[in-house]
């Protein structure tokens, strides 16, 4: 146990390092900050809510920077796409925060927030899961026919629709190999930023599917590009929280000591898998986070009296981090086995790069 003087709590160092490491792996792999996992975990460890948000945001900024540098080396960042989207994201976040303040004044913020996050996360899970399963099946067929499915395959027709919008100026994103109206990118930034600002999260779990399914970027590029956004939004959030005195730097340092290794591993792990594998992990993370939010919603709606709901929310938060981390680690293990010509399950073959 370590006494965190600024936060005024005692918590085990090993747990903070564990959370930093696991969320680092997941964040580097699917391009999210992981606030929806870290903040509830820190609250469970005894940190006050505002302190949990501040610590989370500050560690996300540091971890995001490391992941971004790794993804840059892997060629997964489209700077044109990232910089064009930032303007829309900032506007969206500001709008989202204002709507949140309005609901706070009505005294409905807690329930509306949880309900919105349940609906958004569950809808994204459904779409991502259905589309990814379809892509996975097509890749399996190509694999059986002895043809290389390539690094990416996605079956949604939405990118074609959005790329055909003829509003000038048209932007050519060379790394992402996408030609699309600038207004589409800005609009995606505004909408995802709005949801992020309203829900009080970094928004990676909304932006990555939006970049894949609306803009038409490949999953690897969406992950790398989104991490650039996270460095900016996380950096700004860290600064704001630090000014308000919501950050315990010792807790941040312990989390970062795990996260820096995890984030590098997660980022490098993307080079072992094809696009649908990343989207699978993203959709699993969404459904588990949805269950967590449902538990918390039920806990709030029952007047915070049903203790087992709180207990299950704790288990779900810790279990989710471990599950996603194990899935990513095992995909890398399978990819290495497949490369060496050893046995791997049939469903894994189209998901990993051999």
């Amino acid at each position, binding site marked *: 146990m370590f006494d965190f003087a600024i936060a005024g709590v005692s918590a085990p160092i090993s747990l903070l390092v564990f959370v930093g490491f696991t969320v680092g792996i997941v964040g580097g792999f699917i391009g999210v900050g992981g606030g929806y996992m870290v903040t509830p975990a820190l609250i469970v460890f005894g940190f006050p809510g505002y302190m949990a948000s501040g610590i989370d945001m500050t560690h996300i900024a540091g971890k995001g920077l490391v992941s971004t540098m790794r993804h840059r080396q892997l060629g997964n960042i489209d700077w044109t796409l990232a910089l064009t989207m930032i303007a829309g994201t900032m506007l969206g976040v500001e709008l989202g925060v204002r709507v949140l303040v309005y609901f706070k004044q009505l005294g409905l913020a807690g329930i509306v927030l949880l309900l919105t996050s349940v609906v958004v996360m569950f809808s994204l899970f459904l779409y991502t899961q259905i589309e990814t399963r379809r892509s996975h099946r097509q890749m399996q067929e190509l694999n059986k026919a002895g043809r290389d499915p390539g690094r990416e395959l996605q079956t949604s027709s939405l990118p074609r629709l959005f790329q055909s919008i003829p509003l000038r100026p048209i932007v050519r994103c060379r790394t992402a190999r996408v030609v699309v109206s600038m207004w589409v990118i800005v609009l995606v930034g505004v909408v995802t930023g709005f949801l992020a600002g309203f829900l009080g999260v970094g928004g990676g779990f909304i932006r990555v599917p939006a970049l894949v399914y609306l803009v038409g970027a490949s999953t690897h590029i969406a992950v790398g590009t989104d991490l650039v956004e996270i460095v900016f939004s996380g950096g700004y959030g860290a600064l704001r929280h630090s000014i308000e005195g919501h950050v315990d730097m010792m807790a941040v340092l312990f989390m970062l000591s795990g996260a820096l290794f995890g984030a590098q591993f997660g980022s490098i792990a993307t080079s072992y898998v094809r696009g649908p594998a990343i989207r699978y992990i993203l959709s699993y993370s969404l459904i588990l986070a949805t269950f967590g939010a449902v538990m918390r919603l039920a806990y709030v709606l029952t007047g915070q009296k049903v203790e087992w709901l709180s207990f299950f929310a704790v288990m779900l938060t*810790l279990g989710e981090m471990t599950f996603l981390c194990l899935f990513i680690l095992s995909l890398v293990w399978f990819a290495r086995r497949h490369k060496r010509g050893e046995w791997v399950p049939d469903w894994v073959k189209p998901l990993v790069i051999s």
Partner: protein
Amino acid sequence: MTAGEKDGTVASGNNSLVKRMLSSMWGYWMFLLTISFGVAAAIYWIWLRGSV
């Protein structure tokens, strides 16, 4: 161990259950979920019992 067992085309006794579980994505999902919630329960038992 036979050549078939070694390269995985034929499963030996203990390996067969694991391989059967691994060969379906949902089976693997459940396998990992069980381990993960076991780890979560252990963490709860060791560090968080009484404080949550």
